[in-house]
């Protein structure tokens, strides 16, 4: 059983994981269930699939779900309109339906002869019934193109990674078939490692201060959108290219806009800074 090979996933150089997440990936691969990943925006849910594909040297097929996505479209789309149009003037041979069948991401993952990693990103964005409509295909890993009668069955079960922002509750039968993992927001130690991957040149002191500000910001009450990992990485990038020195973070947060994206949140932070006399991180001493 080749599936045993998957117990190798251990993160990549640019993608740092927690041991629990690695375990979840390996369990899901071993018992051949989709891995459902949830967590705050910016905790690297989507990047996980890229990292797995890279680590296991498999091709990655991504399916970015939108509010209008239909489950069936993931398998294939039959372009009726094009065929009808082609048939109007008789200058096309429209008898071969296959030329109007376009495989979707799921369809491609199931028909690929090699094993692939399939990412179904933000599954919760689509209609409530969307996940249920995928149940059968994800279970048996086969599908039939109704229009042509062609059946496809995956020769190698893809590794399926599904991300969700919990915008809608996912249906129970769907959840029961998944291995669930909730990506926790990284603690300072893990965050230090993550930042170092992106900005290896950053000085220890500046990094410590950035993290102190960052975690303080996340605790400000009433924020609509708390800054996430990706925003921290961008912010530090901005600080570095502007040549900000550690001392400059003592009384202000330069480029606050990189961390705080909403006007109301900016006001909340301003208020919190003004009234934070004793609580402002005082690690500069």
């Amino acid at each position, binding site marked *: *059983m080749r*599936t*045993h090979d998957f*117990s190798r996933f*251990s993160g990549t150089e640019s993608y740092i994981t927690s*041991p*629990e997440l*690695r*375990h*979840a990936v*390996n*369990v*899901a691969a*071993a*018992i051949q*269930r989709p891995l*459902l990943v*949830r*967590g705050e925006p910016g905790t690297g849910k989507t990047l996980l699939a890229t990292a797995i594909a890279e680590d296991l040297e498999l091709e990655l097929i991504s399916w970015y779900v939108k509010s*209008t996505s239909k489950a069936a479209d993931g398998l294939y789309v039959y372009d*009726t*309109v094009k065929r*009808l*149009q082609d*048939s*109007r003037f008789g200058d096309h041979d429209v008898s071969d339906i296959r030329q109007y069948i376009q495989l979707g991401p799921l369809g491609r993952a199931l028909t690929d002869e090699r094993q692939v990693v399939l990412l179904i990103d933000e599954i919760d964005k689509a209609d409530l019934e969307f996940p249920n409509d995928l149940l059968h295909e994800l279970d048996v890993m086969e599908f039939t193109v109704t229009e042509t009668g062609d059946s496809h069955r995956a020769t190698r079960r893809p590794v399926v990674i599904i991300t969700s922002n*919990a*915008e*809608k*509750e*996912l249906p*129970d039968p769907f*959840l*029961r078939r*998944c*291995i*669930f*993992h*909730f990506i*926790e927001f990284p603690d300072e130690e893990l965050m230090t490692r993550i930042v170092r991957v992106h900005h290896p040149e950053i000085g220890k002191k500046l990094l410590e201060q950035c993290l102190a500000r960052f975690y303080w910001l996340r605790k400000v009450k009433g924020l*609509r959108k708390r800054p996430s990992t990706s925003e921290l990485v961008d912010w530090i990038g901005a600080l570095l290219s502007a040549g900000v020195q550690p001392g400059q973070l003592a009384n202000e947060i330069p480029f606050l806009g990189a961390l705080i994206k909403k006007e109301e949140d900016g006001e909340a932070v301003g208020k919190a800074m003004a009234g934070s006399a004793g609580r402002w991180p005082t690690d500069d001493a």
Partner: protein
Amino acid sequence: MTPESEAVQTDNAGIFLAFFFRLRSHGLKVTPQQWLTLIEGLARGLHGSSLMGFYSLARGIMVKDEAELDDFDLCFAAHFKGVETDVPAIEKAVWDWLSNPVPPFVIDPEWLKVIHSVDVAALRAELERRLAEQTERHDGGNYWVGTGGTSAFGHSGSHPGGIRVGGDHGAGTAVQVAAERRYQEHRKDRVLDTRQLSVALTKLRALERRGPADELDLEDTIDRTAREGGELELVFKPPRENRLGVLLVMDVGGSMWPFKQLVDTLFSAAHHARHFKRFDHVYFHNCIYERVYGNAAFSDKIPLGDLFRRWDRETRLVLIGDAYMYPGEITDRFGAIDWTERNERPGADYLERVRDHFTHCAWLNPMREEAWEEPSIRLIRRIFPMYPLTVQGVEELAKNLAVG
């Protein structure tokens, strides 16, 4: 084996299954299918023969929502306290159960059904087959290490289907990790933030086809094309959209002050929920009489008649208030606390008029449910169905208001 150690063994055999009953009794909707998946995982050695591995394996399979993580941790910590090193006991329990699949105590009918439907012999054979396979595959390098002779598939280091887990968790045992209750903030019954409420509110919808026609209507296209004698006639139809509008009626001032932040949170959640056809809000104080107000300063007066004209019967009405007041404000003529109101009829009459205009309405109460026996709250509950202002409460409300 002494009789004493036998007793311990029996106890251990129960611990595995008892864990599932504990999860279920804590309200986690664990199903027999999930349980069988866990057994499969154990049989494949995915727990890496450590309790930490078992913890993380079981959590991945049993928990389906971060809101349940805390309950899982609580159950796990309570259940496996004191047996932290006893992985073989869990493994043995799996085998004991397979050889005699009878739950040791309470039998849940749903479980019983599945237990009867399981072909134990086949399951066992399958597990044995896999284990044999795993052993074979392992002959090249590492080999099985029995753990005290009780386990058929325990293993000390890396496992064929196995996972490197234990080593990563040097800092604490599984029970310690579970006891940290790191997921407490994700509990649904405690926390309330804008986002969670928005999620809860998404249940409040009823879809119908509206807006620009940009979906191909195949049936109509075929029909029309046929009528045109084969000349292609494409017909499009509008996509499905939510047809529900929501009117939020908020009690402000007085006893509602302590709940201001809570109500604000709900308000911004509802305001940001873009899926409503229409979202509006008006204000009142304590009880509704002749009018409600368009602003919290009570200067923009909206008589009930206007309210009914501006918001049709299909609008979902959600009142928010603590319903906590002098009962006379509801039951008496001129009982209004605000002298400018001069209510000719008891407050209850006006409340009933409001209720009767809308096909769907509900009252959200930020007070703890224990306090709902207060006289005024009981009076209000006779008129409006009341839900607690929690994520769960809003979910319930949304579900009930969404029904045709």
